[in-house]
C-alpha cells in the first residue's frame, strides 16, 4: 500500500492553500479532488474578491485559482495532484483511506497526516413543484454558465439573497439573462450590501420578507408564486406571480464532513457554521490528531478565510511531521483570520467557532 506524508482532500481554495503551505515547508503531499479539475468553487467565481491584498482582494476568483495552481507547479517535486478522485472511506484501525478514481480504479493510501478540505454541499428547500425541470441550485447555475458557457434559461427567479444568490444574479445579468427578482425571507440581504446595490441599480428587485410558495408549470418551470412573510416568517396572505423559466435556489450550504465522522473526530452541530463541524484547536487540528480541517468543511464561510485556514492547517500538519517552523508565517495566518472575522458580518462565524474550539495548539 502506498504511504504518503500528507493527504489533502479537496482541491478548492482551502485544499490548494494547505498543499502549497505544507509542501513549501518540505512535506510531500498527495492532493486529491473529486472534480474534473483543480480549483474547487474558485474556477466559477468571475467576480472580484473582497479582503486584503493577502487574499488577492480585487482579483477575480478564477484568477486566484491560477495563482494557487502556479504556486503548486513550483512545488511539483513534492506535490502530486489527482483529479477525478474521491476519498470514499477512512479506516480508524490504522488510518488507511480508500479512494476511487474515474469510477473504475479503487486503491488504498496510508497517509501520516490528513487535511480535510472537502468543501460544502448546497441546501435545497421544499416547495410544490421543486422537482420541475428548471429548478436549479446556484452552484449548478454557476458551473453551467462560468465553467461550460451554457445559460440555464432566459428569465430567472433567484431564491436567497446571501452572497451566493446576489453574486450569481449579477453573473446571470452579465451572461445576458434576465433576472426577474431575488426573494429573501429575512428583512435584510444576507450578502454584502454592495453586492446587492450592484444588482439593484441594474433594475433587479429584491423582495425581502418573501418566500417562494410554489413553482408553476406542467412539464417545466413556467413561473413561480411568491408569498409575503411577517416578522415570524408566517405568510401574510399577500402573494404575487412571477413569470420565469428558471428558479435558482441559493438558500445556503452545509459542510461536507462525512470523512470527519468516519475518522472519529468529535463533531458538534453548530447552526452558525451551518451544520455538523469538527471540534478543533486554534490551528484547526481535530480531536483525531492526524486530521486537520480547513475551509467550508470546518464551517461555512468565505473563500478568503478558507485560503488562510488552508495555510494554517497545512502549516500545522507539516510542523507535526517535523518540518521546520516558520513562526512569522504562522503568526500572519492567525492575524489575517482574526482581521477577516473582526467585523459585524462575522459575528455569527466568531460565535460559532467559539462553540467548537478545544484547548491545545497555542504557540
Amino acid at each position, binding site marked *: 500500500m502506498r504511504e504518503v506524508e500528507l493527504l489533502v482532500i479537496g482541491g478548492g481554495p482551502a485544499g490548494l492553500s494547505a498543499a502549497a503551505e505544507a509542501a513549501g515547508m518540505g512535506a510531500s503531499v498527495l492532493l486529491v479532488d473529486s472534480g474534473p479539475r483543480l480549483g474547487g468553487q474558485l474556477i466559477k467565481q468571475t467576480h472580484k474578491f473582497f479582503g486584503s491584498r493577502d487574499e488577492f482582494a480585487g482579483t477575480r476568483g478564477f484568477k486566484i485559482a491560477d495563482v494557487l495552481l502556479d504556486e503548486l507547479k513550483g512545488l511539483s517535486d513534492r506535490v502530486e495532484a489527482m483529479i477525478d478522485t474521491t476519498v470514499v472511506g477512512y479506516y480508524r484501525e490504522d488510518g488507511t483511506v480508500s479512494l476511487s478514481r474515474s469510477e473504475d480504479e479503487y486503491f488504498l493510501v496510508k497517509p501520516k497526516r490528513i487535511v480535510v478540505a472537502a468543501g460544502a454541499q448546497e441546501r435545497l428547500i421544499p416547495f410544490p413543484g421543486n422537482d420541475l425541470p428548471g429548478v436549479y441550485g446556484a452552484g449548478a447555475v454557476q458551473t453551467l454558465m462560468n465553467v461550460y458557457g451554457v445559460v440555464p434559461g432566459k428569465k430567472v427567479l433567484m431564491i436567497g439573497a446571501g452572497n451566493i444568490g446576489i453574486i450569481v444574479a449579477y453573473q446571470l445579468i452579465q451572461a*445576458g439573462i434576465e433576472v426577474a427578482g431575488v426573494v429573501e425571507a429575512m428583512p435584510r440581504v444576507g450578502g454584502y450590501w454592495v*453586492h446587492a446595490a450592484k444588482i439593484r441599480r441594474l433594475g433587479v428587485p429584491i423582495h425581502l420578507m418573501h418566500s417562494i410558495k410554489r413553482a408553476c408549470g406542467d412539464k417545466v418551470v413556467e413561473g413561480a408564486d411568491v408569498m409575503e412573510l411577517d416578522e415570524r416568517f408566517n405568510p401574510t396572505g399577500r402573494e404575487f406571480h412571477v413569470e420565469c423559466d428558471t428558479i435558482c435556489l441559493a438558500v445556503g450550504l452545509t459542510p461536507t464532513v462525512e470523512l470527519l465522522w468516519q475518522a472519529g473526530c468529535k463533531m458538534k452541530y453548530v447552526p452558525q457554521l451551518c451544520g455538523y463541524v469538527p471540534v478543533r484547536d486554534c490551528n484547526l487540528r481535530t480531536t483525531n490528531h492526524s486530521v486537520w480541517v480547513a475551509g467550508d468543511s470546518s464551517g461555512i464561510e468565505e473563500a478568503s478565510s478558507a485560503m488562510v485556514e488552508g495555510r494554517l492547517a497545512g502549516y500545522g500538519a507539516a510542523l507535526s511531521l517535523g518540518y521546520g517552523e516558520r513562526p512569522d508565517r504562522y503568526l500572519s495566518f492567525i492575524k489575517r483570520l482574526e482581521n477577516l472575522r473582526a467585523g459585524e458580518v462575522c459575528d455569527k462565524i466568531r460565535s460559532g467557532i467559539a462553540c467548537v474550539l478545544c484547548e491545545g495548539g497555542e504557540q
Partner: protein
Amino acid sequence: MDDRNDALLYNSGVLTGPRDGVCKAEEGQWKAKRGGYVVIECPQRIPCNPCHTSCPTGAVLPFADINDVPKVDFSKCTGCCRCVARCPGLACFVVDLAWKEGWAMMKLPYEQLPRPQKGMAVDCLDRIGRKVYRSVIEQVLEPFKDRTFVVSVPVPADLKDDVRAVKVVAHDAE
C-alpha cells in the same frame, strides 16, 4: 410604515441617505475641481480594503481595521478612477463637475456586455435601475486590463447623485 419601508429599501441594497461609509466632497470644492472627485457608497462594515490599497495618492485613508468603512481626504483625490476599477463591490464612482457648466461627467464601473465604446448610446440608471437619462459614452478606460471598464458619461449636473450605472442601448431600440 414609511420608516419600515425605508429600512427595507436600504436593507435591499439601496442607499436612502447619508451614512458612515458614504463619502462625498463638499459641493463648492467639488465644482471647482478639474478631473472630479471620488464618490464612495460603502456603508456596511465588511473585510475589504482595495479602495485604499489601489489609491496612488493616499486619498482613501488607511484602514485601522480592515472592516472599517472607507474615509476620503478629498484634498488628495485626483479623480484617477483606480479605485473605481478595483473595488469588488463597484461602490466607487468619480464625478467631475468642472467638465462643463451644468453637467456632471460620471465615471462609472461597467462589467456588462456589450463591450463599451466611445459614442455608444446608454441609458443612465439610478439606484433602483430606473432610466433617468439617455446619454452617450464619452470615454472608456480599462485601468487594470481586467475587464472592469470605467465609462465616462455626461449627465445634467442635478442627476449626479442619482445616476449609478449605465446600460448600453440595444441597436434595435434606438
